C-alpha cells in the first residue's frame, strides 16, 4: 500500500487554504457594494418618512386653516347679528318691519337669512319669507342648538345641523342674544344652508384622493369633499386622519387621507428607487466582476511562462512584476544553462577520466560508475550499480570497509591502497581516494597502480640485486685487499731478504777480505750497500703507502696541536743541532683515524723540517682555518719551497721535485698523505714558491666536520 506522498498532502492543504483571486475579488466587490446598498435603502426610507411627515404637516395645516376660515366666517356673521341685536329698531315692535327690511338689505353680503326670535322662541320674522307671514315655532333640534344655548348663556352660539322648517333644507344656525339691561329679550339668528359650506370646500385645493369633511358637534356631516366610493371608517387609518376643532362652534374639520393615498409616496419612492438601486448595483457588480476577471487573468498570466513578444500587462504593478518575473526567469534560465554546462563538463570528466570514479551512498553501495572503473573491474556499469564495496575487493580486505566508511562519512579525506577483485576473480591493487560530497554521497577515485606496484617491485628487486652485488663486490674487494696484503707481505718479506743478502755479503766481503780488495773494489761494494739500502727504503715507502689506508676508518678525536708538538719534538731530537722556530696554534682538533692522521702529520712536518734545513732562520707553523665552511689544517715552512708549475706532481708516488743530493727522499710521503686525506673524504692542496717555502693544507671531509 502506498502512503500519501508529500506532494499530495501539500496539494490538499493548498486546496483548504487557497481561493481563487476572482472569488476573492468578487467577495471584495460585494463587501464594497453592500454598505452602499444599505445606505441607499436607509436614505430612501428616510426620504419617504420625510415626505410623509411633510404631507402630515400639510394635511394638519389644511384642516386647521379650513377650521380657522370657518371661524372667521362665523365671526363675521356674529358681528353682523350683533349689530342688528344692538339696533334700536328692535326695542319697538312696530319698527321690526324696518329691521326686517334692513336685514333683508344685508342679505346679499350676508349669504344667509336672518330670523328674529323672542325669548319664548317665537319667530317674529324670517327674511326667507315676507314680513308678517305667520311663522312656526322655532324648532329645537337635538344636540347642540344655537338659540337655546345663546338664550341660556347670553353669548353668541353656533348650533349643529338642523332641518329648517321654513327652508325645508339642512341648515346651520348662529344665534346672537339681544340684551337689554342685562336680560336677553330677543335672539337674532342667522341660518345658512350647508350648500354654502360645500361650495367652500369644493373651492379648496385638495390633493387627489384626500377627503375633507366639516362635521357638526354630533358628527353629522355639514359638508364633505371626498373621492367617490369613499368610506371613512374602512378606507382610513388613524394616522391618515387629521382633525381641527372650531373655536366658535362645536364643529370639527376632519381631513382624511385614505390608506392607499397615504402609502402612495412610499410605494412611489420604492417604485422609482428600486430600479435605480438595482441598476446601480448591477453595474457596480458587473463592472467589478469584469475588472476582477481582468485582474485575475493578468495575475494568473504572471504564473504562466511568458510568451516572447507578448505585450506587457496594462496595470503598472503587474507589469513591474511581469518584468521582474521575466528577469528572474532569464536569470534562472541562465543559471540552468550554466548548471547544465557544468553538469555536462563533469559528466565528460566522469566518462573520460582515466581513473575510475564511483559514486556511492553512505553505505558504499554504488550508484554510478564511470567506464574506467568498469574496464578495471570487468563489470558492466549496470552490474556494478547496487553492488557493495565488499563485493569488489579481495575477501581479506572486507574488514577494512567499515572503518574506511566511518572515516569518509566523518568528512575526512581518505586514501588507501586496496586489493580489488575483478569479475573474473583476478586481483589487482588500486589506490583509492574518497571523500564525502555535499549531497552526502560518497565519491571514490580508483587508480589502478598495478604497474606502479610492478615498478616498485622491480625497483626493490633491483635494489636487492644491487645490494647483493655490492656485497659480492665487497667480498671481492676484501679478497683483493687480502691479496694486496699478501702481495705487500711478499714484498716486505721476500724483497728484503735479497737486499739484506746483497748488503750482508758485501759487508762480509769487506770485513773478511777487505785487506785483499784493491782500488775501487771497496767503492763498488759501498755502492752495492747503498743501493740495497735505497731499495729497502723504497720498499718501506711502498708498504707504508699500501698500508696507509688499510683497515676500518676509525673516528677518533685527534688533538692536532698536541700531536704536532710531539712530532716536531721528535724531529728536533733527531737533529738537536738545528734551530727551528715552531709555532703551533693551540686547540686544533680533528675527527678521524688517529693512526692515519699521525701518518699525515708525520709526513707533512717531516717534509717541513727537511726542506727548511737550508733556510737561514727556519720556521714551521701549524694552524687551522675555515674555508667555505670546511675546517682545514695547514703546515707551512719557509724552506726550499717548490715551483707551482710542478705542483701536480707533488702527490704522485715516486715523483720528486728535488734531487737526492739536495734533499734525500723516495717521493712516497705526500702520495700517502693524499690517500689518507681522500680516505677521510677530505682534500689537500699545496702552495709554494722556490726559496720561500711551502704550505700544505688539508681537510678531513665530513668526518672532520662532525662535532669535535
Amino acid at each position: 500500500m502506498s502512503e500519501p506522498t508529500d506532494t499530495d498532502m501539500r496539494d490538499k492543504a493548498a486546496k483548504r487554504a487557497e481561493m481563487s483571486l476572482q472569488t476573492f475579488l468578487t467577495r471584495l466587490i460585494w463587501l464594497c457594494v453592500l454598505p452602499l446598498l444599505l445606505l441607499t435603502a436607509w436614505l430612501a426610507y428616510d426620504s419617504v418618512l420625510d415626505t410623509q411627515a411633510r404631507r402630515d404637516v400639510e394635511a394638519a395645516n389644511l384642516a386647521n386653516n379650513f377650521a380657522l376660515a370657518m371661524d372667521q366666517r362665523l365671526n363675521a356673521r356674529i358681528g353682523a347679528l350683533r349689530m342688528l341685536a344692538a339696533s334700536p329698531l328692535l326695542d319697538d315692535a312696530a319698527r321690526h318691519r324696518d329691521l326686517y327690511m334692513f336685514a333683508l338689505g344685508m342679505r346679499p353680503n350676508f349669504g344667509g337669512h336672518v330670523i328674529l326670535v323672542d325669548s319664548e322662541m317665537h319667530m317674529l320674522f324670517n327674511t326667507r319669507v315676507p314680513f308678517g307671514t305667520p311663522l312656526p315655532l322655532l324648532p329645537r333640534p337635538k344636540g347642540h342648538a344655537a338659540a337655546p344655548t345663546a338664550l341660556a348663556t347670553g353669548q353668541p352660539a353656533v348650533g349643529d345641523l338642523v332641518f329648517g322648517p321654513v327652508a325645508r333644507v339642512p341648515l346651520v344656525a348662529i344665534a346672537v342674544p339681544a340684551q337689554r339691561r342685562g336680560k336677553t329679550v330677543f335672539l337674532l339668528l342667522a341660518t345658512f344652508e350647508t350648500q354654502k359650506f360645500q361650495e367652500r370646500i369644493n373651492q379648496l385645493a385638495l390633493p387627489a384622493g384626500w377627503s375633507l369633511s366639516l362635521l357638526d358637534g354630533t358628527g353629522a356631516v355639514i359638508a364633505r369633499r371626498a373621492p367617490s366610493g369613499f368610506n371613512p371608517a374602512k378606507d382610513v387609518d388613524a394616522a391618515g386622519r387629521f382633525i381641527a376643532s372650531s373655536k366658535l362652534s362645536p364643529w370639527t374639520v376632519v381631513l382624511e387621507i385614505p390608506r392607499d393615498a397615504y402609502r402612495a409616496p412610499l410605494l412611489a419612492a420604492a417604485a422609482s428607487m428600486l430600479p435605480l438601486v438595482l441598476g446601480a448595483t448591477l453595474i457596480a457588480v458587473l463592472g467589478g466582476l469584469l475588472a476582477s476577471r481582468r485582474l485575475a487573468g493578468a495575475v494568473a498570466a504572471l504564473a504562466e511562462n511568458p510568451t516572447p513578444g507578448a505585450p506587457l500587462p496594462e496595470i503598472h504593478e503587474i507589469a513591474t512584476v511581469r518584468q521582474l518575473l521575466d528577469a528572474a526567469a532569464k536569470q534562472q534560465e541562465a543559471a540552468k544553462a550554466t548548471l547544465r554546462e557544468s553538469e555536462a563538463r563533469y559528466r565528460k570528466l566522469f566518462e573520460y577520466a582515466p581513473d575510475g570514479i564511483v559514486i556511492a551512498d553512505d553505505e558504499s553501495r554504488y550508484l554510478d560508475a564511470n567506464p574506467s572503473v568498469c574496464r578495471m573491474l570487468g563489470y558492466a556499469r549496470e552490474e556494478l550499480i547496487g553492488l557493495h564495496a565488499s563485493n569488489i575487493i579481495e575477501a581479506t580486505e572486507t574488514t577494512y570497509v567499515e572503518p574506511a566508511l566511518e572515516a569518509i562519512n566523518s568528512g575526512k579525506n581518505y586514501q588507501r591502497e586496496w586489493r580489488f577483485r575483478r569479475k573474473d576473480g583476478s586481483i589487482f591493487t588500486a589506490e583509492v581516494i574518497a571523500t564525502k560530497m555535499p549531497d552526502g554521497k560518497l565519491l571514490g577515485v580508483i587508480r589502478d597502480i598495478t604497474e606502479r606496484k610492478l615498478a616498485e617491485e622491480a625497483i626493490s628487486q633491483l635494489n636487492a640485486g644491487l645490494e647483493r652485488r655490492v656485497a659480492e663486490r665487497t667480498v671481492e674487494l676484501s679478497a683483493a685487499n687480502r691479496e694486496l696484503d699478501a702481495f705487500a707481505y711478499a714484498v716486505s718479506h721476500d724483497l728484503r731478504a735479497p737486499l739484506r743478502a746483497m748488503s750482508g755479503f758485501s759487508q762480509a766481503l769487506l770485513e773478511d777480505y777487505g785487506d785483499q780488495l784493491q782500488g775501487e773494489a771497496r767503492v763498488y761494494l759501498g755502492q752495492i750497500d747503498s743501493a740495497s739500502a735505497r731499495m729497502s727504503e723504497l720498499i718501506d715507502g711502498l708498504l707504508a703507502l699500501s698500508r696507509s689506508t688499510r683497515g676500518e676508518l676509525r673516528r677518533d678525536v685527534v688533538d692536532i696541536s698536541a700531536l704536532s708538538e710531539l712530532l716536531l719534538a721528535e724531529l728536533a731530537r733527531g737533529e738537536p743541532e738545528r734551530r727551528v722556530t715552531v709555532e703551533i696554534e693551540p686547540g686544533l682538533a680533528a675527527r678521524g683515524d688517529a693512526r692515519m692522521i699521525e701518518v699525515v702529520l708525520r709526513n707533512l712536518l717531516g717534509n717541513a723540517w727537511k726542506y727548511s734545513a737550508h733556510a737561514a732562520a727556519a720556521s714551521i707553523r701549524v694552524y687551522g682555518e675555515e674555508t667555505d665552511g670546511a675546517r682545514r689544517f695547514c703546515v707551512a715552512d719557509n724552506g726550499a719551497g717548490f715551483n707551482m708549475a710542478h705542483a701536480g706532481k707533488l702527490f704522485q708516488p715516486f715523483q720528486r721535485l728535488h734531487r737526492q743530493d739536495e734533499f734525500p727522499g723516495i717521493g712516497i710521503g705526500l702520495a700517502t698523505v693524499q690517500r689518507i686525506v681522500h680516505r677521510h673524504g677530505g682534500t689537500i692542496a699545496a702552495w709554494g714558491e722556490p726559496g720561500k717555502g711551502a704550505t700544505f693544507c688539508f681537510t678531513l671531509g665530513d668526518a672532520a666536520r662532525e662535532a669535535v
Partner: protein
Amino acid sequence: MTAKTLLLVEDNPQDEMLTLRALRRANLANRVDVARDGQQALDYLFREGEFTDREGPDLPAVVLLDIGLPRLSGLEVLERLRGDVRTALLPVVILTSSDDERDRLKSYENGANSFVRKPVDFADFAESVARLGVYWLATNEPPPGE
C-alpha cells in the same frame, strides 16, 4: 749438563749463512741446528721423521723462527708448538723480514717470546742476531725442565 743448542728455522740460505756468520762472530760456541721449512722444524723438535734419532738435548734453548716458510709457516709452527705440552714453554723468537703489524700481533698471541725484525742493513742485522744469541743462550734462564 748438556750444552745448550739453538734451532734456526730459515728457508733463505743467504739469511741462514748471514745468521750463522753473525752468531759465529759473537763468539758463541753453542751448537746451532737449522731447519729449512716449518715441517722440518716440527720434526726436529718432536724427534720425528728424519730427526727421530738426532743427537743432542730434547729441546734447544731457543728457536729463531722465520715466518715466511715453505710447507708450514712460522706462525703455524708456533701454534703447533704452543699446542703441545712438550714445547708449550719453549722459548721462541720470531725473526723475520716482515714488519707487518698483524704478523707481530699474531706472533705474540700465539705465545712468541720475542719478535725481532731482521734489519735490512747487514751491520744492524749482525748485531741483532749476535745479541739474540748471547741473550737467549747465555743470559736467559730456560723454563724448568723435567
